[in-house]
């Protein structure tokens, strides 16, 4: 009997070590959902009065204190635009590089691979200043849409070492015979890459594509630093400007908008569990 109690106590202790802290982010998520539908600002977790009012930002102007933001949809469009630029660019660059790294015995290959791992470890966010300078020189700063493109390019550049590495892993898994057969048939290397190999590693490509999309959708730091024109804000930048609006806080609106914003993220997270873990395993710094 004593033993059972003792075991139970130890079990509880062990579980609580990792479950109790978990309560905090879970509490936060629960609040997010509760607050978005609650009429009044809720203290604690109990919603009071059900309302869809906070979601009115989906079809109306966003009124926040004395500021009126036009619709939410241009902002969504901006975020999607960012993702739309990022995904094909990142896929293209990493898949072509991965193929070379995997297959071809060119000199310098080892050095480049070392270099990729190096870039991985190196915190790119330290170079935001110089990246700003680069964008200014390229004429991609402060000019509306071009700034969005600039942000997309920076983000792609930061992601590409890791995506190339992951795709290399996929390419490595394809037996050489397939390629050889295609080459014998008279294809150039380029055709082999495009028509034979890429379709085979479709799961890898889609993983990278999804990851790129999520990376773009959720990107806050770089967008916040570089995007200055409210007309071209992406979703997270709009959210942060609402938070830093120092005279007013409309919790309901913030919660509803955040909920709306993270739904794609959560959905994709649920769907791509395995690949995400694999990506993280290769030592990615946050994100």
């Amino acid at each position, binding site marked *: 009997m004593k033993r059972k109690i003792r075991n139970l106590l130890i079990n509880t202790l062990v579980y609580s070590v990792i479950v109790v802290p978990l309560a905090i982010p879970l509490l936060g998520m629960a609040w997010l959902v509760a607050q978005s539908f609650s009429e009044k600002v809720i203290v604690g977790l109990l919603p009071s009065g059900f309302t869809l009012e906070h979601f009115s930002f989906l079809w109306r102007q966003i009124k926040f204190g004395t500021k009126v933001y036009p619709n939410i949809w241009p902002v969504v469009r901006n975020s999607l635009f960012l993702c739309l630029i990022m995904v094909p660019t990142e896929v293209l660059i990493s898949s072509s590089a991965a193929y070379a790294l995997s297959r071809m015995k060119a000199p310098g290959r080892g050095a480049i691979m070392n270099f990729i791992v190096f870039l991985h470890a190196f915190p790119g966010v330290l170079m935001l200043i110089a990246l700003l300078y680069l964008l200014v020189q390229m004429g991609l700063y402060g000019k509306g849409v071009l700034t969005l493109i600039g942000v997309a390019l920076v983000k792609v550049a930061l992601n590409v070492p890791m995506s190339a590495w992951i795709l290399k892993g996929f390419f490595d898994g394809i037996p050489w015979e397939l390629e050889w057969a295609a080459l014998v048939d008279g294809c150039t290397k380029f055709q082999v890459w495009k028509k034979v190999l890429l379709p085979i590693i479709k799961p890898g490509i889609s993983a990278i594509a999804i990851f790129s999309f999520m990376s773009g959708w959720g990107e806050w730091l770089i967008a916040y630093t570089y995007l200055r*024109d409210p007309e071209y804000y992406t979703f997270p930048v709009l959210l942060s400007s609402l938070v830093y609006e120092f005279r007013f806080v409309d919790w309901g609106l913030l919660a509803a908008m955040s909920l709306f914003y993270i739904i794609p993220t959560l959905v994709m997270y649920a769907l791509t569990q395995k690949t995400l873990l694999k990506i993280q395993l290769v030592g990615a710094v946050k994100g």
Partner: protein
Amino acid sequence: MAEKKVSAYVVVALIIGLLIGAVIGYFVKPVPPPPAELEELRSKYEELSSKYSELESKYSELESKYSELESKYSEAEKAYGALKSLLGTFPEEGVIKLKAWCGGAPAEGYRATNLERGVELLNKILKSLGLNVKVEIEATFEHIPRDAARSRLMAAWEAKEAPDIVIDYGYSPVELADMGWAVPLDEYFERYSTLFADVPRSMWELKYKGHIWTIPQDAAMHVFYFRKDVLRKMGWSEEEINALATKINNGEITFEDIMEIAKEAMDKGLVEWGIYHRKGPGGSLWIPYYSLGGRFYDPETGKLTISKSKLLDYFTLFHKMTQVYKVTPPTMIATDWRKIHTDFVNGRVLFWMGGSWHWGEWQRVEYHETLGKLTPEYAWENIGFSLYPATKPGASPGAFVGPHSYVILSQSKYPEIAFLVATLATTPEFEADHCIEGARLPTHAGTRGVSKFVEQGKFLAELSELTGKTWAEWIPHGEWSKLVEILTEALTKVEAGEISPQEAVDLVVSRAETEITDIIITD
């Protein structure tokens, strides 16, 4: 198969042949007019001949008139040329587009609206001068944090798309002048001096590095607010309440007394906190220093100055407020505006070291938990105002009065037009709207006569009577922002109870000695 081909060719040939025939026929068949028509034509020809000679004579008439006009035109062209050089380079015809970014407290949207009205006025003038030039302006007003404004302006500047006019947009006029972003306005002021006839010199003749950089838009005056309803609950009579402002203004009641009153109110549980001041850094925080006779800038030497003894008294005041009397939260200097206004408007704080524009802001923004926007009646009934009390007995009560001004940026292609627009924006009729809405003092004396101002400007009128006891807020020195940073740092630590007032003074002095080059430090 072959037959079908042949027949197809035949059909095609036929069609082509028909087309060619039709074309030829069209061109090659002049039908001579019957003789009767020929006569008609002849008479018509004679008619036209005579008409032609008529027109010929008219033409020579017009020709002489034309040369007359031509000479008149060249005269007008000379005058126009003079006017043109007067107004700077602008197209002979077309549209001039200006952009203006305005910042400020929430109720100051008129800063942008008045620019639009100024443009309308300017267009009327240009039209009456007979010039085919139109001015258009895209003036936006937004209320955003200082950092956001600065980075937005910086981004626009880098992209060479900076606005022509800015006001209160992240950077102070002194900073803009230092960065080379502002246009010196001296010659414009001279040229258009009549437009500033009823604006006090102290508002526009603010020189930095020998030049004027600003066009006054309004005058902000700091105001010390108190809750009359709380005082009533403390047992004060109406006379005592009404006399409070007067006693503060003539120095009878000092900050010492205020802290006592605040403590009493807190002890009685009537308020959460006794005294609130603004988030740092900011102008109103330096008022108690000026009250002691201290100054941060010496106009004669052009250097920054600090006085150790006065700084000691200054920091002691805040030390008392937060650590001794405990009427102010020790985190006051980092408290956000939302909390400050909500707390004061809902009567949870007794005293607020604010500015005149808050009076307007409370009536335009829903801070009150039940009433939303305050009505003028509520404000007059429950909120009293005065100058800032003297820091200690013997010091002077007072406040800062300083103009907030438009600055013309050097990326502008039409600086003189922008200057005119900014000047016209403060035309008394327009200015009255802004002053009433935002509760700020006007730049033109004439504005006080505008009917709207007379009717609704009671608050501002009372304030204007106190302007005699105010100090100017203009510190034209490039290193002022560094001193502000040092003072804010020291003040934060004093309020948090981390250092004593004396240590704060030492901190300020040692940092000033290392970091600021152009400063005089006295005892």
